[in-house]
């Protein structure tokens, strides 16, 4: 039996790493991945809780999160493609004008 | 010794099973290539491989040796790690996907460890299968990208796009079956198709069943099969490796063993898909005949004995000495096997499931080859529009139809 705390702590760690990536990566796509990483961390917490409490609701929420993540990825990557086309660069620090 | 075995059976038995399965699969792959060449050759009115061994039976062996002995050049400034990982990923996934497939109904106990025909019996085996297939993209895509070659890159892009597109159709086409079986476990899907005297009418393909809750999955099957072909990058969907356009697509820069891995992976996934089709739509190991026709259990013998005999007489008049010895030998073995089956009912019963299963799978594999021999390749845009505008809607329609029908039957 693995204590729930292990899972929760792991998810916290992953979330923190996600934040770090989010702040420190310069490549838009990678930053996007960082967001996905954070979402995954949250999912882990969800599942852990739902298992611990013996309710399946948490897992349903995970499904929702995944769906939202998919939608987000679709739109986000579209945006990224447009940005890259217009800016000729994926470095967020070079994309600092409030227009494309 | 024995208690050691009993203690670690849960470890040993699966390992042994895996080893056996892998060996079998590799051999089958090898001879699948032989078969493919032969069939296509005959379709094109050629002889095909004929030199190495009688009827070119040793050709696969030669190929294998060639693969191993060939030089393995490393192209300039490739992304090494990815370049090396890609084929491994592909092969690994291809082989892993076989793990969840049940080949027969039997359960048997070794050293007190209760097991069955097939590696793992997961109760979400279908999902697992899809999961693995889904990951299959990376091998191709990464290979294409890593090998720093525009053709490869294009191949990689194409294949990833293609695989994503057709995965949807693939998954959706199966939903109908799931609706009927109400279970992800392949084994129980097969069991659900067992409807006693209905025989092959009970298969999901035709969708008759005792409880009346069932709907013909012909549409689903065709969607599935086409999508599967696309997933396995076979003709007519083999754009990732379209020789005429992209040299050899994503594995242009690969040679010898790494190339072999892609090769083996491709054929393995063909086998997997065929198995899947068999299980989902063609009742797996179930006999097409009504259960009451017990005499059909002698079908294996009835096939083996004549074939063996024919092989003997045909082999005697073969050109080479080797052939004149080998072919009749094989023929004799087959004949004896058939006789043995006829004589020992126990063995015969045990062989029934695997016999039908392998038979159906073989049929599918042959169909694969047949199509390759027959059909031209799609154009890329045709491929996409076919996947999105035809397969996907049809699959969805199938789901709707099935669920509607089932609802109607339940109330």
């Amino acid at each position: 039996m693995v204590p729930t705390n292990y899972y929760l702590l792991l998810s916290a760690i992953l979330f923190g790493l996600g934040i770090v990536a989010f702040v420190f990566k310069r490549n838009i796509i990678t930053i996007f991945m960082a967001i996905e990483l954070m979402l995954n961390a949250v999912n882990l917490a969800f599942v852990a809780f739902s298992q611990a409490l013996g309710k399946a609701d948490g897992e349903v929420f995970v499904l929702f999160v995944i769906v939202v993540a998919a939608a987000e990825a679709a739109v986000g990557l579209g945006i990224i493609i447009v940005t890259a086309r217009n800016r000729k660069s994926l470095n967020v620090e070079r994309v600092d004008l409030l227009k494309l | 010794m024995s208690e050691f075995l009993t203690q670690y059976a849960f470890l040993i038995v699966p390992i042994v099973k895996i080893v056996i399965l892998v060996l079998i699969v590799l051999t089958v792959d090898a001879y699948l290539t032989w078969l493919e060449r032969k069939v296509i050759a005959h379709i094109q009115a050629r002889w095909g491989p004929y030199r190495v061994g009688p009827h070119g039976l040793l050709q696969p062996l030669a190929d294998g040796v060639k693969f191993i002995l060939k030089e393995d050049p490393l192209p300039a400034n490739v992304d090494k790690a990815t370049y090396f990982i890609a084929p491994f990923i592909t092969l690994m996934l291809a082989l892993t996907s076989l793990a969840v497939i049940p080949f027969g109904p039997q359960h048997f106990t070794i050293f007190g460890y209760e097991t069955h025909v097939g590696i793992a019996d997961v109760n979400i085996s279908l999902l697992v299968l899809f999961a693995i297939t889904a990951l299959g993209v990376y091998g191709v895509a990464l290979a294409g990208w890593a090998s720093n070659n525009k053709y490869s890159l294009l191949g990689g892009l194409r294949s990833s796009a293609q695989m994503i597109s057709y995965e949807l159709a693939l998954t959706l086409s199966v939903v109908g079956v799931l609706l009927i079986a109400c279970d992800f476990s392949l084994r129980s899907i097969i069991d659900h198709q067992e409807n006693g005297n209905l025989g092959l009418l009970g298969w999901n393909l035709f969708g008759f069943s005792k409880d009346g809750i069932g709907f013909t999955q012909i549409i689903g099957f065709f969607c599935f099969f086409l999508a599967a072909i696309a997933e396995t990058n076979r003709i007519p969907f083999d754009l990732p490796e379209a020789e005429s356009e992209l040299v050899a697509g994503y594995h242009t820069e690969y040679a010898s063993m790494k190339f072999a891995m892609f090769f083996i992976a491709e054929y393995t996934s063909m086998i997997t898909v065929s198995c899947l089709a068999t299980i989902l739509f063609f009742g797996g190991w179930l006999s097409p005949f009504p259960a009451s026709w017990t005499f059909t259990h002698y079908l294996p013998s009835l096939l083996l004995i004549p074939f063996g005999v024919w092989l003997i007489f045909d082999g005697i008049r073969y050109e080479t000495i080797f052939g004149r010895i080998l072919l009749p030998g094989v023929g004799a073995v087959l004949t004896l096997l058939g006789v043995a089956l006829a004589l020992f009912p126990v063995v015969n019963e045990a062989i029934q499931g695997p016999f039908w299963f392998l038979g159906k799978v073989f049929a599918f594999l042959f169909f694969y080859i047949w199509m390759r021999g027959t059909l031209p390749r799609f154009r890329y845009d045709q491929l996409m529009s076919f996947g999105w505008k035809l397969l996907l809607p049809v699959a969805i329609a199938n789901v709707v139809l099935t669920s509607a029908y089932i609802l109607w039957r339940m109330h």
Partner: protein
Amino acid sequence: MSILENLWIILLLPLLGSAVNGLFGSKWPNKAVNWVALGSTGLSFVCALEAVREFVAGGEQAFRKEFVGWMSAGSDFRIGLDLQFDQLTVVMVLVVTGVGFLIHIYSTGYMAHEGGYYRFFSYLNLFMFFMLTLVLAANYVVLFVGWEGVGLCSYLLIGFYFLRKSATDAGNKAFIVNRIGDFGFLLGMFLLFRTFHTLDFNGIFRQVSLLPRDTLGQFGTLTVASLLLFMGATGKSAQIPLYVWLPDAMEGPTPVSALIHAATMVTAGVYVVARSHVLYTHAPSAMYVVAVIGCATAFFAATIGLVQSDIKKVLAYSTVSQLGYMFLACGVGAFGAGIFHLMTHAFFKALLFLSAGSVIHAMGGEQDMWHMGGLRSKITVTYWCMLFGTIAIAGFPPFAAFFSKDAILFSAYNSGSNGKILYAVGLLAAVLTSFYMFRLIWLTFYGEKRYDEHRVHVHESPQNMTIPLMILAFLSLTGGWIALPALFGGKDYFAEFLSPIFGMGEVAGSESMQSLEHTLSLVAVVAATAGLLVAWRMYAKGAGRPKMEGFYKVLYNKYYVDELYGALVVGPLVWLSRNVLWKVLDDGVIDGAVNGIASISSAVGDTVRHTQSGNTRSYAVWVLVGALVVFAIIFWPILHPALFGVVR
């Protein structure tokens, strides 16, 4: 349904007419406009008559009703749309609607060829509405609404020919001067509310009647309040010192002058004083002030009237002086007499103005009397009506003003110690009145023609103008007979009718009083005759325009009062506005504040904008900070032991 129960109908009809005409009239032919305007006023006149009938039938019980709550604040401040109907109201309503109706008819003829026909009648109806509100009101606030409303309408109508600068100026002047008065009126209302915690007539008067009277020369709350109200009255009713707007108001069309600036609106002040007579009777000093101012105005305006050459100006000044008479009456406590004179004055002054209008109409817009003369034969009807009006105002028996003016002078004579002086001045004013009125007659209708026959084609006015004239002429002849018996020891029906409100004055029917009254009226008649003779002496054989010099010039320029006000009030005010309010306050403080805010925010933005670097990673960090704070807040309850644990 009884009108009395739904008094608001009387109000609403003119408002309706005004709205309809104002909104749709522009597209309509004059006939349609006439129908709406006359219909609404006529109907409201009928309703008024019906209401009076019911009132009389109901035993003359003062009727009062709150129709709809309006506003309320705090514990005791409740204002509703309260209307009341008592004897005083009867007189006012009849005068307003009746005379108003006649003047409407007249206007259809007079304004026929003017632009903005619908606009004129819309305004006129609106005026009717507000005037009726004023007289029907049962508390000071509703009354004030009417008060301001009529002010507005007068402004609009004075400036009716808004393309003429003089007209708009006159309008502004009227409005602004009235503002001063209204300011006083408002203060008075506030003071009343502060004292009695209600603005309802009955409520206030009931409480006041319990209070002791201030003695003469003592300035208690009541006195101050009364004086403030009277300040408003001086504004509205053109008394010294705020009379200056009325003569200029003659810029408006003549019917307007007749209706608003002679018959009805300008009497509002008198009405208010009469309505609040309880206050005044409790404040003798205020009364005294009213009397003095009234008397002074009567004389002062009359003197100016002597020399005016503009026919309407003459009438305007005579109006001012007649109003002075009314205030004199109120001041000496003869409210009944005041209202009586108000009524008769409404008749004959309307008559005079309308006749003057008819003359002007005949002369094709000429108003200077020195360019008239010998019109008697040309416009006979007008001549006779004018003559009736003149005799009436001059105070010859048996015409209306004889009785009313007589009553006023009589009660002035009997009032207190200084009564004799007031009486004397009043009498003098009477002489002057008859003088300048007959001067007007002779200059206008007798003597040789002083106009170019070829340019001016003199013609009698159409029926719809002359008929109202005749009616009014009849009224100004008979209007006073209601008080006829009083002269021969009988009782004064008018005073008696109003007695439930004012109570019978000190006029006891004793023998001595009787004889005194006879002598006084005789004296009045003699005085009027004197004025007549002087006028005949001077103007009968048409004198030329006199040359401007000496006292004549002063009078002609109205004692330079306008110039005086200009120098004393307007000039400094303008200077203050320009140099202090505009240059310092507006430019400096207000604009300064606005610009200051702008510059401050721009400075702040200049510093803050550096956070908006556009660098996504910085934004990410900001997001992170936010998240950190949120987490801290959420987790605080479970966390702080932990953190302390860490610290410890």
